[in-house]
């Protein structure tokens, strides 16, 4: 059953802490969707999961799953399963007993539990490992058992806390694919916590970026990259190009000159952002002259730092396009108008949202 | 709440105890026996001998239950001083009635402690019918290590100091203190004695002290410092002279009688001694001492004393304890425990006051070959010194010999 999750106005301040960990947090997760909860370490992402799971209680706000509020319910009655970062398999139980744990707590007959457990073992590529002890498993197997133990309960909401962080890089891709496919197949509404934006982009339908105890932007990865809600969001996703200036009559006036703005942009001071990968180099109709400051090969891309009339600008281009560039050389730079994104925020001013 | 309860107990208890004690002191024996019926006596006594335990738990307990309907609960302790401390703690806690201890097997220093702290129930002994069998004229009965008994305890056994030797290795032992001192020097390493304040070792030192004084005559009565100084000097000279000839050249002494018994059992020393020679027989029967162990008393005098049973002031069941004391004093029980196979303890009653049959039975008692006859010891009897002498001698020994 696909159920949406609705968080509204959640507040939580840990005892003895001066600043709230959650400060009026709102978030909607669509039924059956996979949302990544992204943010720097220590922003309260795990706290939020514990709140939803019922292990913590908010000072204010509401958590609704479908048409019911979860707040009055103890964790075991929420139909929400939280899978912790450390897989937390019960060391005194076998793999099969771990997976069947939740069903056993419900008092289901042994043969029913065994049937479901076997199915889960197969589904998570754990066939034949049922009799093992948790300490005899590899990292990837451990994580899959933890996942199986959660999914066997067919929860309304699955909460995954950094499910890939304890895995070797090589295993992450496979695990990510497995989570994706299982989630699609089962249609369980899922919230995945991660601090890795690449992982969030690769895994999730949508990304909720959390900063300062709130969700600062919740959108698809494409939107978040191209049209960040704040400068902080832009910076978090690697947005390095920020030009301070003034919007006046549909045009942005800055140190490098006038740039076109989308129609309807109101006048006033602000910043213009532009993804480094949107910057194109070479001659062109709208090209401006810049000087190459630094040029670094990054594997799939080359990072070029440019001086454009005294303003620093970063471009990420295909290596073959940057092949002939030398430091100090002059090069044409084009800033496509469609990639320009205006924010009513000044980079020198203190950020609207504290990191 | 608890404080109120405690106050109530403190106020109520003495009054109640007083009336009971009055009945016990002034009532008839039949009244006491009637009151005692159905009760339990918690008798605390040294429990280190299976034979004595067996006699009390099997024989006495059965008779007490059958004849008087009283349950006897023998509680073995390692040392009677534990029981004295227990009663003392109860008194300090204000428990003047309903105490844990009904009867104690006691004598000497522990009796003195109980008298000094006013822990004994007193003045009742005349009520016991069998009291007439006790010769209270005998100072060795009327005084417990010089402390007047004053109706605070009832005699149970008399003992006299005896020496044991293995007749297989030493057929002709020295039989007087003078001979013994010569023998010690002639047989280096074959003699020792437990360091005072061990009860038995202290008694040995008193024998030397009396020997040095030339007899007990001048030592009886209250402590006399000048007399003590004179005799003590001679005593320490004697003991220092024999010291190099003792076991391990006198560099160390056994600290308990048990240790010395072990040295004797293993043949390391030629003698052990005991204030109760019946213990030699028990040790032979238990396989501890060699079978050819024989015992004797020093012909120039051997100390004797009496041990008693005592009812604490706060005993729960004084009437039942009195009935038990009376039973223990009866000719039948005095005879029973005198049997060598039972215990072999000498009677505390005057045999001449018993019936002709009992007298004949005592005369006909088989003698344990290892236990010197009470009659033989009685011929050399020395009265015990008063407690102040004991204390002074023990302190002197520690200062002069046991440094």
């Amino acid at each position: 059953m696909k159920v949406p999750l609705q968080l509204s106005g959640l507040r939580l301040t840990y005892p003895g802490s001066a600043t709230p960990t959650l400060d009026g947090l709102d978030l909607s997760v669509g039924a059956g969707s996979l949302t990544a909860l992204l943010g720097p370490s220590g922003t309260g992402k795990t706290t939020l999961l514990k709140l939803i799971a019922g292990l913590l209680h908010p000072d204010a706000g509401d958590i609704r799953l479908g048409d019911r509020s979860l707040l009055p319910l103890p964790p075991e009655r929420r139909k929400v399963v939280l899978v912790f970062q450390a897989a937390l398999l019960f060391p005194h139980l076998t793999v099969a007993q771990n997976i069947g744990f939740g069903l056993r707590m419900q008092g289901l007959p042994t043969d029913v539990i065994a049937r479901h457990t076997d199915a889960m073992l197969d589904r998570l590529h754990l066939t034949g490992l049922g009799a093992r002890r948790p300490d005899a498993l590899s990292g990837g197997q451990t994580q899959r058992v933890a996942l199986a133990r959660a999914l066997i309960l067919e929860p309304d909401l699955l909460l995954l806390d950094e499910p890939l962080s304890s895995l070797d890089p090589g295993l992450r891709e496979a695990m990510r694919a497995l989570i994706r496919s299982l989630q699609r197949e089962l249609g369980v509404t899922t919230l995945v916590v991660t601090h890795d934006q690449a992982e969030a982009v690769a895994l999730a339908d949508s990304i909720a970026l959390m900063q300062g105890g709130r969700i600062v932007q919740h959108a698809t990865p494409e939107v978040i990259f191209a049209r960040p809600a704040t400068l902080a969001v832009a910076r978090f996703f690697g947005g390095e190009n920020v030009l301070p200036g003034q919007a006046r009559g549909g045009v942005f006036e800055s140190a490098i000159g006038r740039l076109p703005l989308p129609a309807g942009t109101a006048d006033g001071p602000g910043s213009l952002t532009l993804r480094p990968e949107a910057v194109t180099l070479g001659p062109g109709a709208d090209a401006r002259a810049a000087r190459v400051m630094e040029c670094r090969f990054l594997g799939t891309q080359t990072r070029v730092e440019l001086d454009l009339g005294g303003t620093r600008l970063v471009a990420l281009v295909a290596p073959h396009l940057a092949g002939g560039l030398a430091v100090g050389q002059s090069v044409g730079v084009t800033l496509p108008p469609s990639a320009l994104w205006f924010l009513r925020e000044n980079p020198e001013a203190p950020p609207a949202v504290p990191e | 709440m608890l404080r109120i309860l405690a106050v109530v107990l403190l106020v109520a208890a003495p009054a109640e105890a007083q009336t009971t004690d009055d009945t016990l002191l002034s009532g008839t024996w039949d009244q006491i026996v009637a009151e005692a019926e159905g009760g339990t006596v918690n008798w605390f006594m040294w429990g280190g001998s299976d034979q004595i335990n067996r006699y009390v738990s099997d024989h006495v307990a059965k008779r007490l239950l059958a004849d008087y309907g009283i349950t006897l609960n023998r509680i073995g302790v390692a040392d009677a001083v534990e029981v004295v401390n227990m009663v003392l703690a109860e008194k300090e806690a204000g428990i003047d009635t309903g105490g844990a201890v009904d009867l104690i097997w006691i004598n000497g220093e522990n009796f003195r402690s109980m008298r000094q702290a006013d822990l004994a129930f007193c003045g009742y002994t005349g009520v016991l019918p069998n009291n007439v069998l006790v010769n209270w004229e005998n100072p060795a009965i009327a005084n417990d290590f010089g402390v007047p008994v004053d109706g605070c305890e009832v005699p149970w056994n008399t003992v006299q100091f005896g020496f044991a030797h293995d007749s297989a290795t030493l057929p002709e032992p020295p039989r007087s203190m003078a001979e013994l001192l010569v023998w010690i020097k002639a047989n280096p390493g074959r003699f020792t004695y437990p360091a005072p304040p061990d009860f038995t070792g202290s008694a040995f030192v008193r024998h030397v002290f009396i020997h040095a004084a030339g007899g007990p005559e001048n030592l009886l009565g209250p402590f006399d410092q000048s007399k003590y100084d004179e005799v003590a000097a001679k005593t320490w000279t004697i003991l220092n002279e024999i010291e190099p000839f003792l076991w391990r050249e006198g560099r160390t002494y056994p600290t308990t009688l048990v240790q010395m018994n072990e040295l004797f059992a293993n043949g390391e020393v030629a003698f052990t001694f005991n204030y109760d020679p019946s213990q030699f027989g028990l040790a032979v029967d238990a396989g501890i001492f060699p079978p050819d162990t024989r015992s004797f008393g020093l012909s120039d005098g051997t100390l004797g004393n009496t041990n008693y049973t005592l009812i604490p002031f706060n005993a729960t069941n004084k009437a039942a304890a009195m009935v038990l004391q009376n039973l223990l004093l009866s000719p039948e029980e005095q005879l029973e425990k005198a049997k060598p196979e039972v215990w072999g303890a000498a009677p505390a009653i005057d045999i001449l006051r018993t019936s002709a049959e009992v007298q004949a039975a005592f005369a006909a008692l088989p003698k344990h070959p290892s236990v010197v006859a009470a009659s033989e010891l009685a011929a050399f009897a020395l009265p015990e010194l008063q407690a102040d002498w004991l204390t002074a001698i023990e302190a002197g020994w520690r200062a002069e010999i046991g440094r």
Partner: protein
Amino acid sequence: MKRDVLSALARLALALFLLMPLIPLAIWSVAHGWRFPALLPSELSLAAWSYALSPVSGVVGSLGLTFFIAAVTSVIATALAYPAGRALGRLRFPGRSVVLVLVLAPAVLPAIAVALGLQGLFLRMGWTGTIWGVVLAHLIPALPYPTLVLTAVFARFDPHHEDQARCLGARPLQVLLHVTLPAVLPGLRTGAVLAFLISWSQYLLTLSIGGGKVQTLPLLLFTFATSGRNDLTGAVAMIYVLPALAFMALLLRQRSKTAPLPNRTDR
């Protein structure tokens, strides 16, 4: 692997260490006339055993009493130590080490000091001479051991396991039964055995609080040991030591079978 070998060796050494003194005691208990320099007793006798097992000696009744007191002390001490060890093991608070030292204090205090301190109080409360008074007194030296063991166990137990179980649908009681208790079971068992043995071996406290009326085996044993009766001491000592060893072996036997504790993850 290496740890297994070491612990097996340690257990063997412990067993030998415990059993060595029993050998002369066992011989003494059937010896009649075993005097220096004989290597073995000249005669064998079952007299000491027959006395020890007879109702007169009270040894058998005392064995039951000693076991009962030790078992009750162990259960209560472990039950009290559970929340205490949990709090001490989990929480990191300033002064925690001071609290740990205080917890340990009753175990290192001289028994005589504890006994004297308690006796007056217990007398006034009317608890002396009762089995429950003795149990209460035994709890004082017994409690620190399960508390310290469980403190160490809970320090290594990740409480997130309990949260995880709740999320998987376990009610609090189910969490306790199916997750927490199995995880700390080795500690509970060790703590319970230690508390049992502490009670089993109490002499002074039993004497002063029991007032002689609560006659546990150490009291009987001490009486014989101090009166030079090696045969009786041997027999009673065997009766005293063997059940304790058996009990310990029984409870610790399963230790090797239990899984290692989960490691704590700090989040």
